[in-house]
């Protein structure tokens, strides 16, 4: 039976409860919420004068009411050391979500740590050091001294290559401008660390190099463009699940206004079903292409649009590069960049050729081209183009995204109302770091360096590669072996002095071991290998700024204490810098020690002022941002007038493109010819295995389930990761719903529960990514593109049953996800 909380009433928010601005820290959309807190022994009442809403709560409230909250929106937490009630509910006045809550954000309160209700007891509360064969709690000073002493032994002024760093680059839960700056100032300011990577990919690089190289920043529109457009062109994206309230509050109204929808996806997603429900099937065109064939499709669309004359010649002339080649193809550019005419020649692909490659009808490609570009009443057809991981983590990333931007540029659909060519995004953004130019391009493939035995000390910031990297099986084997060498050395010297222990660790790392320092909010799977674990806070436990997918910047106000002794990442980075400075001075390395000055921040606000404020025109402050509330301001912020921050609704409204840094501010086209499955090993894998293991996220499970793995409501629904398979394929494998299958191929194996999906194509499956009890990345091979962008989506494997359904899996529903009205 389904999980029930058995809560039959909730404390009422009193009229004088404290109110805090909260931007949901989960997905890129950043819905506005309000956190209300009040003392534990006080409560509001049903009379209008006794509650925050000023309404009679003895009456049933109607649909969409702002005057109700679910049990998941309630908790009891610590604030300034005292227990308080906490309600976090959607903000009806926020323009992003208009009061809607997602299945993730509406559980923020329930997913706070509480000693009273017992929620999220997995949160780390104290620094821990590997001692006597396990992790022992200790002080910050002790833990950081060990980190600094070991790290100082492997770095030097001109060579920091033995220090490996995995660090988040996002806003939201653990990131934000404060924390990317704190870590960035340490590793790219004080040091110039080259061997590093980002949370979701094995190198320190952009996920969208080509659009930037073309001059077009990837978040260039405003969400309101979905309500103004004629056509939504969605590629490799499933927004009702992964950008939920962007879909419900912006895309859906646009569709209901009559906009058409073109969706490119090898899978029929619930987004497609929702679009059909809202618009009718005749307004929705699903191009169900063969996995990885997007580039061929886009080049054919581009060719067709040009052939039909549906291009914006004035725009092309005024805003794009004239000539031939502007940037030649080389090791840093997987395709040449240049003029419109050069792209027309390089990208030429007929409808019929594309139809053969993509497995869709030529007529449907022609129809899509018309829906995207055919002028309406002599004017530009407005089209918003939105893409995400389906192509970002798909075949030939650089050329594919470039080909999509080509279409937006050719039709003049960037920087204008109802237009934009944008990624939808995963996390929010909040990037502010010193230059990463020293990392180089292509950037080092960090996972492969680790597998090859390189590096000596690894600092990890809110990354759990065990769950979310590619080639994960081999990575984990190597990582466990190398870190275990250090653990054994430490165990062998139990009782030794600090100096002796550091010596023991250094000899183990010189023999091929790896010393691992993990900064996170929970004890993660990669954290099981760590030698020092440092507890961080997350959004709401500190003040935190981020921006969403339309560059809307907000401040989440701290509304509760962090667990135990945990600290903001920026303050942990500062403390590491200060300890490194101290240790280097002790060792007489004063020149080097001097580089670690400048971290004397008293709070996250100081880090914000040192980073974001100082580097963006010194306009934005916490006070100013707080006053802008949950609607915030869209970046770039250009001024402060009449008590308000002034922002920018959409980029490139003046037709000048500057993301590539060119003085002429002219956009470039991408000359990317179709070349099949580009990444090493993919063609062979496809040839040798029966099933496509398409993969991605689902509505309910945020990222790698780090908090959800201890959330009863979530784990009750999917106790283990699911893989959706057509019922006929299940029958051929002898599977019943819920049976545990093993997914296995040339690089590894993983497990999932079989979920029948009647809309799946034969031999094409979809598995949820990043789950704790079945890492999909185990079966993703090491193949990446030239710029080390992973290719998770094109994965093939075989499937066999390994067990009947687990007892928990037997209890869940295996019905279709598609609504029937």
């Amino acid at each position, binding site marked *: 039976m389904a999980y029930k909380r058995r809560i039959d009433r909730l404390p009422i928010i009193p009229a004088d409860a404290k109110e805090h601005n909260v931007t949901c820290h989960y997905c890129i959309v950043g819905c506005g919420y309000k956190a209300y807190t009040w003392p534990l022994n006080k409560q509001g009442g049903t009379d209008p004068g006794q509650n925050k809403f000023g309404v009679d709560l003895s009456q049933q409230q109607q649909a969409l009411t702002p005057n109700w909250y679910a049990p*998941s929106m309630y908790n009891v937490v610590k604030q300034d050391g005292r227990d308080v009630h906490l309600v976090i509910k959607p903000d009806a006045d926020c323009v992003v979500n208009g009061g809607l809550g997602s*299945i993730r954000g509406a*559980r923020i309160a329930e997913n706070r740590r509480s000693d009273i209700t017992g929620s999220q007891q997995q949160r780390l509360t104290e620094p821990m050091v590997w001692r006597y064969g396990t992790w022992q709690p200790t002080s910050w000073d002790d833990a950081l001294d060990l980190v600094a002493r070991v790290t100082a032994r492997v770095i030097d002024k001109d060579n920091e290559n033995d220090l490996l760093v995995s660090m988040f680059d996002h806003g939201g839960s653990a990131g934000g401008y404060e924390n990317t700056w704190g870590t960035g100032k340490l590793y790219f300011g004080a040091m110039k660390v080259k061997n590093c990577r980002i949370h979701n990919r094995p190198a320190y690089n952009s996920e969208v190099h080509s659009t930037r190289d073309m001059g077009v920043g990837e978040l260039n529109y405003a969400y309101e463009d979905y309500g103004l457009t004629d056509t939504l062109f969605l590629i490799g994206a499933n927004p009702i699940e992964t950008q939920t309230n962007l879909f419900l509050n912006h895309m859906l109204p646009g569709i209901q206004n009559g906009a058409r929808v073109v969706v490119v996806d090898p899978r029929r997603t619930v987004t497609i079903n929702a679009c059909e429900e809202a618009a009718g099937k005749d307004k929705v065109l699903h191009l169900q292409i063969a996995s990885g064939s997007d580039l061929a499709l886009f080049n054919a669309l581009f060719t067709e649009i040009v052939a039909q004359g549906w291009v914006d010649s004035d725009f092309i002339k005024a805003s794009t590069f004239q000539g031939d080649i502007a940037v030649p193809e080389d090791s840093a550019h997987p395709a040449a960049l240049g003029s419109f005419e050069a792209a027309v020649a390089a990208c030429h692909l007929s409808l019929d050729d594309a139809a053969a490659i993509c497995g869709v009808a030529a007529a449907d490609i022609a129809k899509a081209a018309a829906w995207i570009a055919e002028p309406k009443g002599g004017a530009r057809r407005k089209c918003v183009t939105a893409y995400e991981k389906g192509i970002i983590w798909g075949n030939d990333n650089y050329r594919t995204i470039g080909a999509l931007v080509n279409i937006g540029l050719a039709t003049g659909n960037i920087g204008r109302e109802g237009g934009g060519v944008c990624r939808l995004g995963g996390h929010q953004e909040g990037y502010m770091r010193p230059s990463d130019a020293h990392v180089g391009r292509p950037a080092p493939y960090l996972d492969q360096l680790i597998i090859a035995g390189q590096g000596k000390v690894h600092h990890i910031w809110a990354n759990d590669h065990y769950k979310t990297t590619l080639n994960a099986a081999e990575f984990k084997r190597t990582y466990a072996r190398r870190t275990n060498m250090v653990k054994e050395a430490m165990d062998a010297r139990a009782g030794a002095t600090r100096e002796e222990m550091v010596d023991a660790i250094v000899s183990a790392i010189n023999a091929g071991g790896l010393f691992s320092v993990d900064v996170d909010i929970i004890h993660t799977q990669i954290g099981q290998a760590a030698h020092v674990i440092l507890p961080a806070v997350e959004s709401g436990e500190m003040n935190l700024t981020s921006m969403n997918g339309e560059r809307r910047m907000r401040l989440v106000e701290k509304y509760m204490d962090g667990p135990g002794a945990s600290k903001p990442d920026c303050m942990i980075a500062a403390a590491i810098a200060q300890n490194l400075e101290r240790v280097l001075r002790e060792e007489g390395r004063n020149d080097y020690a001097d580089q670690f000055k400048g971290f004397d921040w008293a709070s996250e606000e100081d880090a914000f002022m040192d980073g974001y404020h100082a580097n963006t025109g010194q306009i934005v402050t916490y006070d100013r941002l707080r006053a802008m509330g949950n609607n915030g301001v869209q970046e770039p912020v250009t001024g402060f007038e009449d008590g308000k921050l002034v922002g920018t609704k959409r980029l490139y409204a003046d037709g000048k493109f500057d993301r590539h840094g060119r003085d002429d501010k002219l956009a470039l086209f991408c000359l990317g010819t179709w070349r099949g499955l580009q990444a090493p090993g993919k063609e062979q894998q496809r040839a040798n295995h029966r099933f496509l293991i398409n993969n991605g996220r689902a509505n309910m499970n945020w990222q790698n389930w780090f908090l959800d793995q201890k959330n009863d409501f979530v784990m009750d629904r999917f106790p283990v990761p699911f893989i959706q398979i057509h019922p006929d394929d299940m029958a051929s494998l002898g599977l019943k719903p819920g049976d545990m299958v093993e997914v296995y191929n040339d690089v590894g194996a993983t497990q999932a529960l079989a979920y029948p999906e009647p809309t799946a194509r034969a031999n094409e499956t979809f598995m949820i990514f990043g789950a704790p009890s079945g890492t999909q990345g185990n079966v993703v091979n090491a193949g990446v593109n030239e710029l080390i962008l992973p290719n998770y989506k094109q994965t093939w494997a075989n499937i066999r049953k390994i067990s009947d359904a687990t007892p928990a899996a037997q209890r869940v529903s295996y019905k279709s996800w598609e609504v029937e009205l």
Partner: protein
Amino acid sequence: MKCNRLVDAGRRQFLRGGVLGVAGVAAASVLPAAPAKAEIALARVAYPSNRVGNLKDLKVDEPVDIAYPDDNSPGILLKLGKPVEGGVGPDGDVVAYSVLCPHKGFPLSYHAADKTLNCPGHYSRFDTENGGQQVWGHATQNLTQFELRVDDAGDIFAEGADELIYGRLSNVLQA
């Protein structure tokens, strides 16, 4: 194939917009001004036992509109045709659910082909054969199921609820 039947009570509730008189509210009483004395409150709300139907009137897959614990909380009484956990009656197949979507309170409709309740608001759906588990959707709780008891005459009584009902901070409304 499609079943477009909207559960009527839910539809009325949604369209009405306003609020009718509330049933089950304690009569207003004059409290003594002094001395201050804490009222005795119970740890859980006291659910009424309300007759919501009789077994003989139920047909498989034909939901009957009910309201519980009061007229402003629409639900359905449903005979599934196969025994389920929590089902009552001789066949163990009679269940009752709130039809206010726990996401934003839109009225759910029953789709007999797979025995789910579906939401026109934002497309969530709930499994009536599995305690109202959200099959897919935006709600952060599974659907409120009403506890049922059947007497010797076949009369069916609703006597409790297992989740907070949408739109009220107490399942039994109190002034």
